[in-house]
Every structure is written in C-alpha cells, then in structure tokens.
C-alpha cells in the first residue's frame, strides 16, 4: 500500500538566545522518520519539549516560533512539501493537510460565527461552493454528534462549550476533505467526562471520512484508544516506534515501559483509624454577590492520611481549599482543626494556625515570587515562624533541599532557572519549612509531564511516611486517587456526591455521577473506548 505521508530523516533546528550568552543553535527534532498510510492514525507521544508538536507542524511545512526545518524530507503522496514554494504550500495547507489546535477557544476568531469559520478554508481554496461547503459542514456536525447541527453554525464561539468547540474545530479540519489531519493535543484541556465524548467523535469522524491523522498527546492512555501506530519521542529523538498493540502491551525501551507503568505504584489504604485532624462541617460558601459555589459540604481528614477530592472543573474543589485556608470565609458551617474550632477568616487565625496548614499550588510558576531565590523562598517561613537566621537558617535550607531530593547548588537560583518539576519541589520545600500538619495540594501535578508528576507523588508519599503528614489532594485524575488516597470525596457542581474510604467510594454500587466519572478515565488498554461506549449505549437503551 502506498504511503500517504512519509517523513524521512527530519531535522528541525532553532536559535535560542540564553541571557548573557551568544545565541546558539539547538536541535529540536533529530533524524525522525515515519510512514502513514491512508486512513490510518499515528500517535506521537512524549513529554513537553519532546518535539512532538514541531513534528506535527512539519507535515504542514510550518515551523513555529523560529523553528526551521533544516534537513530531511516530508513527502505527501510522493511530493516533497519542503521543496514547494510559498504559493505551493498554500495550496496544501487547509486543503490537503489540516490542523486541529489544542486550545480551540484560542484558535477560533470570537468575532465570527462558527459556521463561516468552518467552511472558510474549503471555499477559499475553491474546492467547493458555499452551498456545498454548508452541506458538508452540516454532515460533519452530525457525524461529530453536535447538538442541533442545523443551527450550530449560526453560533459564536463563546456560545458553545469547550468540548463542542473542539469538535467544531475538528469539523473545520475535515470540511475540505483533507487527506491528512494533524491533531495537536485536542483533548488535553478538557475534563475527562468531556474528553471521552470528543475522543469518540474524532475517532468516528476519522473512520467515516477515511482520513489519515497524526495524533499528538502526552497521554498514552488516550493515544492507545485512537491510533494504529504509536511513536514515542524524547528530546527530539525517536525512542520507540511500533503498532499501538506492541507499544502498550510489550514496550521494548525502558522509557516506554516507564510511561506505560506510570502511577501503578499503589499505596495501600490506611486501615487504622486515627484521630480526626481537620473537620469540615456543613460548609456553604460563595461570593459576596450571592453566587454560591459550595453547598453543605461535610468531610474530615484523619491524622497522617490522605483525602483526595475529585471532580471536574467548576465542581468547587478549589473553592473548598480556599475555604479551609481561610481565604474565603464560609457563609455557613464551621471548620475545626485538631479538635479546636478554626476562625473562618484569615485575619482571625494566629500564625501558629497558619503554620499548621500549608498550601501547594497547581502552577508553581506563579506561586513563587520570580524575584526571590530558592534560598529566600524556602528560608522565609523559617525566619517567619521559627526566627531562624544566618548559619542555622542556611543549614535548615540545605536539609530541606535534601528532603526534596535537590542539591545545595540550587539555593541561589531564581524560579525561572528551574524546570517545572524542580519548581514544584521547591514549592513543597516551602510548605515543609513551616513544619505543617496538613498540606493542601491543589492539583500539584496536573501541569507536569507524567514521569515528573510521578516523581513528585513519590516524594509526597515519602514525606508523609517520614513526618506523619496529612494531605488533602485535589485532583481530577482518578489514577492519582487510586494510587495515593486513603479516603475520597467526589464533588459535582458544588455538592459532595460521595465521601468515604477509597475502597468503598471506588467500588460499586455507584451513584450516577461517580459512575460516569470513573468510566470516563482512559485506561491503558486497546479497545477501552469501544467497550465504554457500548456499555453506555446499552445503558441508555435500557433507560
């Protein structure tokens, strides 16, 4: 079978400008080759900086942000895209090869109706008349399962949900009947329950239209559902390239094995009932304009154990963390800590109250002052709570850096000089410096690559073991909950849907929402998507 897309020895370079040094050339992608037949899907997977998006864009002969394709060839149906001139490549882009971006919300022009944007490329390229394009868009809206397909195109981007927008973007890419579509992390920004719908719609549409696709993602479980072949990338080089089945079930390289086995390190659920450390009683919270976000939430955290709070965005889980820390005083209800009532507002809490509850943020970048060094960031709580100065402080900072498995060489660095994982480690050290009893972790790993995230989770578990820390771990990732939690609280639209020990919450009988949430989490298993969709369909048939 002739290959539709054939990439040979692709090399992509860029010039970087490190501060205070002369500009230098960096190789982003080095000697990558692959083939893609008509109607097949190739998954490109790797952590951030692996060069996967850059490779995806090379199929459109496009280099983003100064990246230059300096070697190799990209053959589409035997024609080298890199050798085409500007007008030649313009005939390919949007007509034969289309692109679906990660953030559909940012990729659509908010000033135009969706329908006009979906058909624009096809009409511009003269592939079809406006009427034909509209008919095709309508057909695609149906295939992608969008609500009210007849009138969907009349809406503006802000009038539809994120998942619908992502599907509209897929319709836009499919509209011109392209031979190849590049999907750049199309579901990464979506909640799991939405992700599964979009994933199913994309898969269905690809099959229906017999289009080939490059599917870029960092989530191996997602790519396993949709790809025929998978290529694992790291630092711009191919680590492993094979069929989806082989990669998932029999990975050869150590790196791929680590990716497949990520987060399978289970921590057994605590069986001993310890004293309650934090107790949240009938808390209702909201904003001063009367808009309520939390309704009557009651839960507790035992000493030395982990409570995981799960839910999708907008479920109120971060708001609950703000209520516990005192940033948002509750409208009703009370919070007690170690048997004593905690003042609802931040102002009413003593420094010792504050010291005992620490918070770790999702984005370590914004949680640390960019103009303070690691020494200042970790050292401040030591001075503030314990009055440590001079040599005693330096020694303690060093000790804390050791605990987070970083060398003393980092003390004089600024946050911008650290990697994402290192930043989160420093944030953990800052929390530890206060010697707290409870640490609230607000999605501390969701912005990190899977292997880095696993390192952070292992660190948190190790510290819990050593210091008998309690955690409230806010996440939307059920896999993390399974791996580290002792008890679980499921939240949905500001209400506590389910709360109890992990073994009880994550096993049947389920309520409807927990069931949906659990079933939507992609599993590292070929054919999982079909299985879930069939059971779903059967359920709806049964209803």
């Amino acid at each position, binding site marked *: 079978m002739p290959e539709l897309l054939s990439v040979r020895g692709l090399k992509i370079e860029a010039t970087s400008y490190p501060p205070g040094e002369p500009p230098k050339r960096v190789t982003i992608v080095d000697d990558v080759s692959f083939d893609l037949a008509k109607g097949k899907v190739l998954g490109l997977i790797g952590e951030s900086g692996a060069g996967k998006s850059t490779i995806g864009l090379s199929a459109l002969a496009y280099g983003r942000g100064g990246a230059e394709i300096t070697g190799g060839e990209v053959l589409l149906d035997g024609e080298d895209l890199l050798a085409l001139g500007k007008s030649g490549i313009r005939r390919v882009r949007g007509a034969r090869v289309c692109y679906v971006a990660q953030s559909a919300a940012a990729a659509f022009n908010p000033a135009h109706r969706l329908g006009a944007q979906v058909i624009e490329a096809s009409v511009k390229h003269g592939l079809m008349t406006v009427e034909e394009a509209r008919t095709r868009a309508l057909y695609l809206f149906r295939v992608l399962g969008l609500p009210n397909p007849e009138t969907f195109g009349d809406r503006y981007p802000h009038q539809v949900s994120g998942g619908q927008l992502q599907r509209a973007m897929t319709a836009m890419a499919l509209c011109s009947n392209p031979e190849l579509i590049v999907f750049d992390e199309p579901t990464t920004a979506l909640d799991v329950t939405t992700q599964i719908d979009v994933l199913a719609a994309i898969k269905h549409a690809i099959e229906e239209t017999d289009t080939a696709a490059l599917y870029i993602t960092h989530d191996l479980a997602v790519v396993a559902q949709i790809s025929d072949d998978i290529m694992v990338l790291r630092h711009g080089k191919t680590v492993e390239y094979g069929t989806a089945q082989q990669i998932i079930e029999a990975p050869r390289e150590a790196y791929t094995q680590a990716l497949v086995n990520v987060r399978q390190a289970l921590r057994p659920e605590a069986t001993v009932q310890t004293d309650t450390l934090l107790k949240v009683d009938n808390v209702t919270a909201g904003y001063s304009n009367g808009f309520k976000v939390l309704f009557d939430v009651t839960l507790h955290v035992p000493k030395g154990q982990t409570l995981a709070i799960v839910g999708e965005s907008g479920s109120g889980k971060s708001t609950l963390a703000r209520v516990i820390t005192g940033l948002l005083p509750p409208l009703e209800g009370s919070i007690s800590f170690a048997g004593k009532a905690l003042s609802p507002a*931040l102002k009413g809490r003593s420094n010792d109250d504050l*010291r005992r509850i620490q918070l770790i943020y999702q984005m370590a970048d914004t949680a640390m*002052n960019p*103009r303070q060094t690691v020494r200042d960031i970790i050292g401040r709580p030591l001075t503030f709570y314990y009055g440590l100065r001079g040599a005693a402080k330096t020694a303690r900072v060093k000790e804390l850096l050791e605990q987070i498995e970083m060398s003393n060489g980092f003390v004089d660095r600024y946050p911008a000089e650290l990697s994402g994982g290192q930043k989160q480690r420093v944030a953990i050290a800052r929390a530890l410096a*206060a010697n707290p009893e409870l640490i609230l972790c607000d999605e501390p790993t969701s912005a990190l690559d899977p292997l880095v995230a696993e390192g952070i989770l292992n660190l948190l578990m190790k510290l819990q073991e050593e210091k008998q820390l309690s955690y409230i771990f806010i996440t939307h990732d059920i896999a993390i909950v399974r791996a580290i939690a002792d008890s679980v609280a499921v939240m949905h639209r500001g209400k506590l849907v389910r709360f109890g020990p992990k073994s009880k919450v994550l096993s049947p009988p389920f309520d409807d929402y927990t069931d949906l949430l659990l079933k939507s989490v992609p599993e590292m298993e070929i054919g999982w998507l079909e299985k879930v969709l069939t059971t779903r369909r059967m359920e709806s048939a049964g209803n």
Partner: protein
Amino acid sequence: MRLREIPITAWIGIAGILLALFCAIFAPWIAPHGETEVVGEVWAPADGQFYFGLDNLGRDILSRLIYGARTTLFVALGATLISFSLGIVLSFTAAVSRGPIDTVLSRFNDLMMSIPTLIFALVVLAVLPQSIFILILVMAVLDSTRVYRLGRAVALDVAVMEFVEAAKLRGEGRVWIIFREILPNTLSPLLAEFGLRFAFAILFLSTLSFLGLGIQPPAADWGGMVKDNKDGIIFGISAALVPGGAIAALAICVNLVVDWLLKRTSSLKGGRGDA
C-alpha cells in the same frame, strides 16, 4: 553586578549626574564669580573670561549655572523622591487592602487630580509661607497623585498573583507584602516613570519660578534663568539657551541611567521573561 556590564550610555548618564552633583556641592569653590555679583555689561557675549557670557543683569552665567545646580537638583530630585515614596506606599496599600481603604484613597486621589495642578500649586504656595521645604512638599504631593495612579494599576496586577496569596497565607504583614513581594515585581514601570517625572519636576519648578512662586530671586535656578533671559532671544542673544541646555542635558542623563536600571530589572535572571 560587575562594572564592566554597565553600558556606555549609562556611564554617560552617571557622569552627567555626578558633574551636576559636584557643581551643587562645591559651588562656592568652583564658581569663578559670585551668584549675584554683577560683573559686566548686560548680555555681554561669551569671551575668554566669561565662558557662557553674561545675563540680563550682567551676572556671569556659568557661575549662576553652578549655583543653580544646587536648587534645581535639590528641589527636583527631592520632590520626585518624596512623590514616589508617598505615591508607592499609598497606592500599594490600596491595592493590597482593597475594600474601603482602597475606595477612600482612590477617590481622594481622583479629587486631587481633578484640580489643575498649576492652579492648585499657585493657591497653596500663595497661602503658605515661602520656604524651599514647603515648595518641595507641595510639588511632591501634587506629583504623587500621578504616581499613585500608576502604582495602583501595576500593583493590582501583581497583588492577585499566587505568591502574594501564599505570603498572606503565611501570615505576613502588609509591609512585607508591599516591599518584598510586590515592589520588586513592579520596579520596571515605576523606574521608567521616575525618569519622566524628574524631568517634569524640573520644568514645573521653572514654571513656578517664572510665576514668582518658586525659587525667589536673586537665588539662581535653571528654570528661573531661562525665564530671566528669555527676552534676549528676541535680540538674538543666546543666554537663555545655556540653562535650557543644562536642563535638557540633566533630564537626558537621568533617563539614560533609568533606562539601564530598567533593562537590568526587567532582564534580571528570573525575571518574568520580559527581557
């Protein structure tokens, strides 16, 4: 910081400011003639004895320029520094506290800004006793309203960042949050504004002197010297251009130094990437 890293433009700026400072400090020793001493013909042209010529009363322009550096530097720099201290502290307090404190401060600031600066200064200076310190204070207070506007806007952006929230959760007081968390992250726009405001302060001082409410004659200040000699321009006498040039040179020097500081604070390793 290594000396070699300072760019040539910043050195020029530093040299200019140092020269002005040197003149201001050692005026009685380096000035060839007295500040108010009449030494020759009215508007005598420059020659070997009087390098810049004589002014409208026959006083040596170079000597007056050297003495004038004292008042001009002292008043303009003093007023700008005080206005920034006042404006930054109040605006950051407003941005961190929000609520009623913010409302009261901001509305009071609006009220001050709604009165034309010059007229306000004229009224206040006419009522209060004539003194250089009152002059500096009035200029500073009036100018601080502009600093307040800018300071509050930039501080609001930083005050909602998570590291500020983290400091609040730690239990830090307002002083720490303002000076340690917010100020280092807002230095760039504030420094840029400082360079501009300093130049405006020199001009404002000369305007006030012109109207008779600034530096009182016969004491010399650069703005006042421009005013004294402006009529000469009609007769083709360039005496007014000399102090005018001095004002321009000093403003440029201050801005050269500020530009360099600005670059340093914004491209500082660990900055927010806005090099």
